[in-house]
């Protein structure tokens, strides 16, 4: 009888410990997966934001008239700059694409496109769930006209296409850019 009790007790204790271990490994495994996807999203994000910021800082470079910004919209920006530093003014467009229609993946994900001189747009960032532009004049108040734009605030969220328990890992970034050639 005593031995039976020992066996039962051992079995119970072992089972509890085994469950704890399983839960522990499952938890850290999930953390590892989340970290991995977050790192991937962040790497894509850093690359995209570096390019966007560099582009926006160059708005108006080489433009001799006062027309640096052609269209200032909340999700689209068209501006002029001498991209190749060759004396020829180029027209650059940034635009947030429509919601992706295929099944699966992140249902809120979109693609941020960039186009130069009317060429077919190319993606600069995928998994964009938010891309918002705000424009300000020289006084720091919202610009009333495209020609009054002296600074712009960009906010962007990138998310992973893979759903992890709790949601889609993502990164949020916002920055105010004051192109010196517009001032």
């Amino acid at each position: 009888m005593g031995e039976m009790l020992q066996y039962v007790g051992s079995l119970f204790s072992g089972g509890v410990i085994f469950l704890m271990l399983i839960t522990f490994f499952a938890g850290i495994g999930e953390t590892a997966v989340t970290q991995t996807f977050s790192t991937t999203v962040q790497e894509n994000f850093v690359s995209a934001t570096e390019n966007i910021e560099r582009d926006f800082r160059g708005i108006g470079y080489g433009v001799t008239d006062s027309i640096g910004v052609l269209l200032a919209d909340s999700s689209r920006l068209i501006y002029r700059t001498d991209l190749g530093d060759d004396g020829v003014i180029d027209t650059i467009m940034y635009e947030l694409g429509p919601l992706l229609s295929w099944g699966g993946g992140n249902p809120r994900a979109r693609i941020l496109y960039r186009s130069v001189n009317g060429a077919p747009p190319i993606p600069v960032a995928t998994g964009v769930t938010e891309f918002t532009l705000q424009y300000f004049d020289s006084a720091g108040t919202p610009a009333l006209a495209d020609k009054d734009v002296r600074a712009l605030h960009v906010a962007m969220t990138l998310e992973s296409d893979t759903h992890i328990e709790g949601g889609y890992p993502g990164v949020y970034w916002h920055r105010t850019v004051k192109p010196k050639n517009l001032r």
Partner: protein
Amino acid sequence: MSGRALIVVIVGIITISSTIFLQITGASKDISANTDRAYMRHAALNIAQSAVNVAIRRLTDQPWWRSGVPQMDLLGGKASIALVETTYNGASAIEILSTGTMGVGTPDEHTERAAAFVRNGYIPLAVKAALTTTHMAYPQAGFVLDGRDHNADGTLRIPGGTGTLAVWTLKGYNQTTGATVGGTLNGIDYVPSMPASPNVIQTFQTWPGGYPSSPDSLLTALGFSIPEGTLEAVAKSGAGGSQYVTNPVLLNYPLRGVTYVELPDHGMWDAATITGEGILIVHNEDRNAILSNVNNGPFVGFLIGDEIVHINCTIIGAIVSMGGHEDDIVNGPGQLLFSNEAISRFTGLVARGLGDKRGTVGGVLAWKE
């Protein structure tokens, strides 16, 4: 479970846990590295942009500065500055190129570049000769009037051919014994002589649209002009040692930057000392301010006056007078040596003191990052 089996199980647990933890910390390290990289990039860019601003400030004090800075400490990193004379949209410009580096010598080292184009000096359209005047020109008594190009130190520029006429005037010309006059026409230098070669003297000229009537209008260049009142404003600002006075007794020497002496109606600055450099203006609204017996120099730069009488010192640059009366000019024992370099140094100072039409500061035409 036997002791050995238990050891095996525990070692297995430790191994698996360690592997997973390593994976987590590795991902965390990558995330931190991205953040660190973004910081280094922005810090390096701040350094590069700040270095450009340092260069713009230095050009205000030293318009002739072109040597740059090979390396300097700035904002926790290193910066370098180089200057290149070039053009921007057809305008004479200086390109300031800077690099900013964070984490020098470390694995995290990151370098960013910035550049700006600022206005360079230029020769105003009003400078048609070493002496451009509304008056009769009377070189005499040992005066040397040389329109050939000279360096800012007064030495003749070699190779030659880049100078200008000796005299351009709305009136006549009379060179007397003792004075020697020379200049450049169509790339050919004429050594100062008595009498001067007629090729370097142009008399009874006309100025389409009328002779300029203000100092600011004399600084107009092709496609570029300065608003009326700019020279006075620069002088009053004190930029680069500039001065504005209504009594020349109050001047500080040596003259630097833009020196604006506004005299009363028919006012005279006699026995003048003009030692220094820059743009010197002696003028009033009625264009009858008199600069007389200019005894003490040398002056390097651009002299603008209403009536200029008896120059007895060395002037390296150019003179433009715009007075309405026929007074003598350049009839002292001094010398006027034309110098593109001297004029450009200080017209650049004025040009950089202006914003462009979009209001950028420091005369910056464009930023490139």
